[in-house]
């Protein structure tokens, strides 16, 4: 009898610690959508690049193509974040949780701090025309951001972070193939991971 009470106490303690310190309304489906947008973006980017494959660290880059690539990347980012915000708000509403809490702010700050640093670093790479390093740098910084953010939401996010980090480091050794590494990390990994998260957390509660 006493045993049951203690077991209940322990699970109550764990639940309270998690609920008060981690943001748990993150939607797995958002990951799947982000992956799809990224893959679509990568296809468009490849068309734009055509023969100007990113063969070297600093290929002769047409300014116009560069601008178009920037637009495509921005569109992917806006769509992915928009969908994530929409799905996550919906999930929080369904579970009767508030969306804007201390845990939300903490997650966003800890996720975006390394990510924005990475974004600025990528702009610097553009500035010095080290185009070939942009895709690896994006993967590396995104991986680090995920690892850092995983403390404030589902711990599972950490493995996705390490996967992207390793992929990004690998990509530095295959400079001409940046776009394929990028499509794997931001596209494929997101989709696989999103489905896995969705099955683990969302479907159970639906």
């Amino acid at each position: 009898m006493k045993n049951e009470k203690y077991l209940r106490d322990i699970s109550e303690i764990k639940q309270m610690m998690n609920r008060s310190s981690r943001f748990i309304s993150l939607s797995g489906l958002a990951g799947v959508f982000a992956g799809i947008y990224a893959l679509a973006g990568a296809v468009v980017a490849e068309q734009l690049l055509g023969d100007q494959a990113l063969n070297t660290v600093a290929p002769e880059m047409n300014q116009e193509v560069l601008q178009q690539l920037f637009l495509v990347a921005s569109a992917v980012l806006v769509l992915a974040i928009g969908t994530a915000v929409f799905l996550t708000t919906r999930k929080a509403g369904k579970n009767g949780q508030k969306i804007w809490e201390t845990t939300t702010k903490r997650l966003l700050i800890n996720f975006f701090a390394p990510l924005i640093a990475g974004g600025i670093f990528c702009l610097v790479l553009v500035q010095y025309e080290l185009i070939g390093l942009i895709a690896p740098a994006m993967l590396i910084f995104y991986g680090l951001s995920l690892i850092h953010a995983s403390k404030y939401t589902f711990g599972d996010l950490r493995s996705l972070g390490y996967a992207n980090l390793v992929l990004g480091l690998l990509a530095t050794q295959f400079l001409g193939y940046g776009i394929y590494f990028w499509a794997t990390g931001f596209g494929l990994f997101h989709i696989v991971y999103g489905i896995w998260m969705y099955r683990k957390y969302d479907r159970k509660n639906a």
Partner: protein
Amino acid sequence: MKNIISNINKAFDHRVRLGIMSVLMVNEHADFTTLRELLGVTDGNIASHIKALEKKDYVKVEKSFIDRKPNTRYIATKKGREDFQKHIDAIESLLGQQQLKP
């Protein structure tokens, strides 16, 4: 065995007090509304449990103003953290022993 049982702390022997301490263990501080929403109990209920923990010197209260609105935040004291950790350890080792027996 005796040692373990003496670490089981009567002060934490209630769902609400257990909850308050759990939240304060992993957060630097928490305000009244946050605690109330997390635990899902009434104002009066939570206030009386916080009082009890305060009396034991496990929880510290800090009152301040945010945008001219009064804000009360609660912080676990060093003693509170230590005793709560001992309480958790005691429960876990008791459960561990029970599992070994049969």
